């Protein structure tokens, strides 16, 4: 069956020249969008029509377009990654929208993610948090040990994998009324705390990453649960409880 065609859509989108200028909303009309097309394809079609009219295309982040890289962002009609749950924007399809609808697209509104251009925000503060301790140090000289030598209980492995699913897209901080990065930090800390390889730097990791998160100006978590609801990988706030545990026990030992 052929997909329905949305005859007309009004795209209300944030336009901002660069980080130093003030932005504003512009509304563009686009026609004949198939409901089978993805949201980012709709953005591409819109940009082509803008180029044809001599208007600068709307800048937005995207890369793999299969929900794994964490690059696409966009706050669509009041929700991070749009109206569906457990997906990134590139996995969102136009069948979720109606003919004649006005779709409002905003960049992530987080103090620590300044807007660079239009819908693109600078998410390097997440990288900085990772650099502070979201890794393990390994010596790669000599023979690699056999992977099966390190046994990991099934439950631990499952929980670590749930946390490791984080793609660092920033939807957690973007949906949080406090712009808190706790779910991101929790996912990274929890992932390594659950695995034997993460034990050596475990305490330092929690302290360093939380300190960096605070330093970068992310807000304080008030347990509203918005992050969990909007996370494309549905990472649970149970990981935030673990982060709190890791941080407090590391601090008590100081």
């Amino acid at each position, binding site marked *: 069956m052929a997909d329905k065609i949305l005859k007309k859509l009004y795209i209300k989108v944030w336009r901002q020249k660069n980080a130093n200028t003030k932005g504003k909303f512009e509304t563009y009309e686009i026609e004949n969008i198939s409901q089978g097309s993805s949201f980012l394809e709709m953005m591409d079609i819109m940009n082509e029509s803008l180029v044809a009219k001599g208007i600068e295309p709307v800048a937005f982040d995207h890369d793999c377009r299969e929900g794994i890289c964490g690059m696409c962002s966009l706050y669509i009609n009041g929700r991070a990654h749009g109206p569906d749950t457990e997906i990134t924007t590139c996995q969102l399809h136009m069948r979720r929208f109606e003919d004649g609808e006005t779709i409002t697209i905003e960049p992530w509104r987080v103090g620590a993610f300044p807007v660079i251009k239009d819908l693109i925000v600078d998410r390097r503060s997440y990288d900085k948090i990772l650099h502070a301790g979201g890794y393990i140090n390994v010596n790669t000289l000599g023979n690699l040990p056999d992977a099966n030598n390190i046994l990991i209980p099934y439950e631990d492995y499952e929980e670590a994998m749930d946390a490791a699913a984080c793609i660092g897209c920033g939807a957690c901080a973007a949906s949080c009324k406090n712009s808190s990065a706790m779910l991101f930090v929790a996912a990274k800390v929890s992932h390594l705390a659950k695995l034997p390889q993460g034990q050596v730097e475990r305490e330092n990791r929690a302290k360093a990453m939380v300190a960096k998160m605070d330093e970068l100006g*992310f807000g304080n978590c008030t347990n509203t649960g918005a992050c969990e609801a909007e996370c494309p990988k549905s990472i649970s706030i149970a990981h935030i409880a673990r982060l709190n545990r890791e941080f*407090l026990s590391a601090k008590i030992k100081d």
Partner: protein
Amino acid sequence: MSNFLSSSIGKKLIMSLSGLFLVVFLLVHLSINLLILFDSTGGLYNEAVHFMGTNPLIKVMEPVLAIGFIVHIVYATILTLQNQKATPTKYNVTQKTKTFSWASKNMYILGFAVLAFLVLHIIQFYVKMKITDTAPIVEATGGHDGYKLVTDLFTQHGTLSYVYCAVYVLAGILLGLHIRHGFWSAFQTIGWNNYTWKSRLFTLATIFAWVIAIGYSILPLYMTFFL
């Protein structure tokens, strides 16, 4: 422990511990209040009032309780200001994200409403009993007649008594909402939560919030309409 209190989680831990401490106070206060239901002569309640007024342990705990309130309010203010600073630009389209509860997004406002009530409550009881000493006296013992003080408030002021009743019931409900989010949140912040306990803590918090809201509302209603 050097920069512990300046860290986000450190400040939240203070919120959760002071909150849990205040919850204990609420339970003690409520259980004494409920004595009114079991003795309509007021003798039982006045005995408890006398005990609370003279027991040395309670006297020591009084300033501790005041500090608990102040710490809870001061840290809530610091955290709220920081959170507002962290989000300089708001979204144009109002957030449609589902959160755990309405209360979870409005804890500061709820807390402020409870604080406003607390001021009224202190003026109506604590000031009269401990500062101006204008509360009625029980002839036999010479102690304060807390029972007369509280029942007068809800029965002897005509229409105003109904207003007081409504204010006290409203405060009970707002306190219940505050606790519905605050109670489980405190455990989450301490780190005592996981996949399994999340729903258990939600249920516990809901039950606890109802106990507080109903417990504190039932007395003004009882006194206004049945005494």
